[in-house]
């Protein structure tokens, strides 16, 4: 780093601190009170620093580094702060790789502190040596290998700043064992100054005015709200924009809750398993207002059928997302909240009766969320609905990946941002349980429900131990259909029922939970379900509900891959 790229003014030398202490101080300076990790040889000196900070930084010992990473993701998403996960070198660091990739895809700010072998051993294929900075280049926003403790105060400040600013993402700080121990008198910088990194703030005013013209002139506008609403805290501005302009709203999977789902202008989630009417709307709209979205393939389907006659207004903080998928009439690079504040006063109220009438007619005729009769089995949708009822709609829900994820997004009406969490981009099964731990740590005292399939649960089931040991009162609802359900559904639809690798020969999850010291309940009827969920909701500790649901229930609606928003398959019943 050259003089011209160094940080702003500093306060002169400060008392000597070890590298490990510098990291702890940086964590505290970020207002972070919980970190997640698993120690190992190369990170032992850091754990010795954590020992002295344990009254101010709670360390939650995960039972697998991936669990620590997903928990840090959950903590970050629940709080809006940066999550921190830590591991040792080699296998510890490589076990975090899936979590890094997940943060990167979903724009979640997490700083990873990984131990590295001592400096003299680097490059010698030493025990537990892995080039984690090399490995993580394509799946992180940035990374550092810190070769001297004097760099650490600046690197930690940069790491947190990079993680949370602009389009958030994961940052790895790889610290050799002897750098944790090395002392430095270099103070933490007052501010970060990175010459090659200047995130854009409010959008260009000329483009904002142009956006307002396009929106005001449109007859069939649709707001498509994404993760950016949560990230920039723009839910109030989105609400104002939609209601004052009378503009209907659909959300992406990560936009769920960014606009209250019971509001008449809410038309739910779009996409492959989005609501039929949300997708029809995207086929017919004449103006797509994309807010903090990246027009992911699971949301858009076939590009040619997605708003073929629509002008696109796209606001996003990442310039690389604009024009990546759709030809964009009005591109605006900027922070969503600030940009909407500039846009809102320019938006005129329009009745748009034919359009809103059409949308409501679709909603009436293609209900999408009716749960069919099922006298003999419990349907997985009912589990989600029951959680909704028991919690009065005010719970944090963390879904895993697959069918459970879609049902959890569909059958619960989220009214507020940062209430529904799922790993939408990378789609790593095993996300929900550890992420729910992190959400609960970030939202103590609030009801937190982990909705998972049986397959995904087994991927990180070791975290039952963490729930028990740390007394984290997460409620786990297993939608146990004895299958990798989405695999089974796809093999049924697209492989003529040739089921391969889709069946799960499960253990008794209630007993497994009990063995881990958790309350475990087995549920196989509708009556048991409602009681069990109400009891779990009222209980102040962790609970695992093993709900034996219909084994062959499919997720509807569905857009077959390769087709567009007009070819929605609806529930045949």
């Amino acid at each position: 780093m050259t003089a011209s790229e160094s940080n702003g003014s500093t306060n002169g030398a400060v008392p000597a601190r070890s590298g490990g202490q510098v990291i702890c101080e940086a964590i505290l300076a970020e207002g972070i009170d919980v970190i997640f990790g698993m120690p190992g040889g190369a990170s032992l000196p850091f754990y010795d620093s954590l020992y002295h900070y344990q009254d101010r930084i709670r360390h939650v010992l995960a039972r697998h580094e991936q669990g620590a990473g997903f928990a840090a993701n959950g903590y970050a998403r629940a709080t809006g702060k940066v999550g921190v996960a830590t591991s040792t070198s080699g296998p510890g660091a490589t076990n975090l790789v899936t979590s890094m990739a997940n943060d990167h895809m979903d724009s979640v700010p997490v700083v990873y502190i990984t131990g590295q072998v001592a400096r003299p051993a680097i490059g010698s294929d030493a025990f537990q040596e892995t080039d984690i900075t090399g490995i993580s280049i394509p799946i992180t926003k940035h990374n550092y290998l810190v070769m001297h403790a004097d760099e650490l105060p600046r690197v930690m400040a940069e790491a947190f700043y990079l993680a949370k600013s602009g389009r958030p993402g994961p940052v790895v700080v790889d610290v050799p064992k002897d750098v944790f121990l090395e002392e430095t008198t270099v103070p933490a910088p007052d501010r970060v100054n990175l010459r090659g990194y200047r995130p854009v703030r409010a959008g260009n005013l000329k483009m904002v005015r142009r956006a307002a013209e396009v929106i005001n002139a449109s007859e069939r506008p649709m707001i498509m709200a994404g993760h950016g609403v949560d990230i920039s805290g723009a839910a109030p501005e989105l609400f104002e924009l939609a209601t004052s302009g009378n503009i209907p709203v659909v959300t992406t999977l990560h936009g769920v809750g960014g606009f209250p789902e019971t509001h008449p202008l809410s038309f739910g989630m779009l996409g492959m398993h989005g609501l039929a009417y949300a997708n029809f709307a995207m086929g017919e709209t004449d103006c797509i207002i994309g807010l903090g979205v990246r027009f992911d393939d699971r949301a858009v389907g076939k590009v040619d059928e997605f708003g073929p006659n629509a002008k696109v207004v796209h606001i996003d903080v990442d310039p690389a997302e604009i024009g990546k998928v759709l030809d964009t009439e009005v591109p605006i690079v900027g922070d969503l909240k600030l940009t909407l504040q500039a846009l809102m006063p320019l938006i005129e109220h329009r009745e748009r009766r034919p359009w809103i009438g059409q949308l409501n007619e679709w909603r009436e005729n293609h209900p999408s969320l009716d749960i069919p009769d099922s006298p003999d089995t419990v349907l997985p949708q009912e589990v989600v609905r029951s959680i909704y009822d028991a919690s009065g709609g005010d719970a944090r829900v963390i879904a895993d990946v697959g069918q459970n994820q879609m049902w959890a997004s569909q059958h619960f009406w989220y009214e507020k941002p940062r209430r529904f969490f799922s790993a939408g981009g990378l789609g790593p099964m095993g996300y929900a349980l550890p992420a729910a731990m992190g959400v609960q740590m970030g939202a103590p005292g609030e009801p937190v429900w982990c909705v998972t399939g049986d397959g995904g649960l087994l991927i990180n089931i070791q975290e039952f131990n963490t729930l028990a040991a740390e007394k984290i009162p997460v409620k786990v609802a297993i939608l146990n259909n004895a299958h990798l359900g989405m695999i089974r559904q796809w093999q049924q639809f697209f492989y003529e029922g040739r089921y391969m690798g889709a069946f799960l020969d499960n253990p008794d999850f209630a007993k497994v939970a009990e063995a881990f010291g958790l309350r475990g309940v087995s549920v196989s009827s509708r009556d048991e379900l409602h009681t069990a969920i109400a009891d779990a909701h009222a209980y102040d500790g962790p609970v695992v509900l093993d709900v034996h649901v219909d084994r062959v229930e499919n997720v509807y609606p569905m857009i077959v891959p390769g087709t567009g928003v007009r070819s929605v398959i609806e529930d045949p019943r």
Partner: protein
Amino acid sequence: MNGESRSHTLVAMVADHPGVLTRVASMFRRRGFNIASLAVGNCEEPGYSRMTIEVRGTDDEVKQFEKQLYKLVEVITVRDLTDVSAVQTETALVRVRVSAADRPVLADIAGIFHGEIVDVGRDSMIVQITGVSETIDRFLDVIAEYGIDELTRTGVVAMARGSKASRNGSARG
């Protein structure tokens, strides 16, 4: 997203940190961009390097490439010089098989292309030739019949004409 695929020349100023080339190369490969040449070296500011990158693609694809490149924290600026009046040059070293009798002919050809004979062996010589890539291509074509034993090219380096420095360009917005 349409347009014809063609060669673009981009110039990027990057921090001279270990790993910066890996980051750039990793992004190329991951996003499927096809790099024709890449030249890196010191620039006017200590602690920074300048890269000249030749990449094939439609204008939209290259715009996306430029934005992704600019997203890298250690990339300070990016500028596409393709449709800008710019000096573009490249150097090649060519070892040509040549008998003593043919030497004068080859020396003549090299002269026409403003090449320089920088080494002579018993049955070969090395020609150093500098110019735009097309000139080098034409030279290689002409001498192909003698037999090219070894060829190395630096890749293009480029600079916009006039007084506007490339560090002022950026891919922002």
